[in-house]
């Protein structure tokens, strides 16, 4: 199992486990709610609710 760290879920206030090697800008799924969370900073890790996908996103 990959290394994990804990961070606060901005939607529920709970501590959640996320991969230890997250990058700023990466999207992680909240294990509690399934919501997409964006990594805003690392060291310490802060998360925000990720913006919705827009019409022209993707390949």
């Amino acid at each position, binding site marked *: 199992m990959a290394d994990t760290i804990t961070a606060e879920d901005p939607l529920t206030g709970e501590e959640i486990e996320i991969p230890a090697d997250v990058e700023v*800008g*990466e*999207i992680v799924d909240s294990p509690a709610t399934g919501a997409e969370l964006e990594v805003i900073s690392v060291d310490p890790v802060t998360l925000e609710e990720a913006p919705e996908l827009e*019409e*022209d996103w993707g390949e």
Partner: protein
Amino acid sequence: MKVGLLYSRIRRDEKLLLSELRDRGHEVAKIDVRDEQFSLSDPPESFDGVDVVVDRCLATSRSLYITQFLDAYDVPVVNSAATADVCSDKVKNSLALERAGVPTPTTEVAFTTDSALEIIEEFGYPCVIKPVVGSWGRLMAKVESRSAAEAILEHKATLGHYQHKVFYVQEFVEKPGRDIRVVAVDGEPIAAMTRSSDHWLTNAAKGADVQPFEVDDRVRELVETASDAVGGGLLGVDLMETGEDYTVHEVNHNVEFKALNDAVDVDVPATVVDWLESTVESETEATA
């Protein structure tokens, strides 16, 4: 080298690239497009000293404008503004393929629902309506009857954005339950996979089953020509098997490769970085 990675979301694709670049000791500047401001004359500070910018913007509009700005600043960017312009628009994409003699599905465009309906009736059922800008198979419609066509066209006409009133109608290609995605750099295939699904849409983003595909001479030739037709770069060329030949339905400029990397033995991000290194090297030699 110093690589600027333009992003608004770090997907697994970007993470694979970042790891490969850092493992090789390259300097990487991650540039979040949401934080940048672009003047007409000078690049933002985030671009200082970069040898090449890799455009991994998710939003097509951002990608189109920023690559234009980078061109204006003489900052090398992959893919180029010209490639992004052709690939992001299905009409331009189809025109480029046709012009280059690459077999591509029969396509017609109209600007009113009545004219679009005439095309659809002419094509017969089923046929396909695609948005001119879009991705991941969203808003694609397989039209199986006149009444469905009328409803889809009416809905599209009320969606709001003018692009939805550009009606792009395409023949339905009876593919063998799969299509082929080739990821290539300047026309040279890195690896390829088939994408299979019971659904008529076989996008990996829609959960299609992916398997490695061995590129044959004909696919190699078509990928090279299709790549040249859209201006080259790091591209995803999509083909369908028609029985005796292939037809190229699309060339993608913001190519996702994580599914391909999982499906094949080739190290896709490593090969992309090899190409970036040689691109920067040629650029440096050209300006020396």
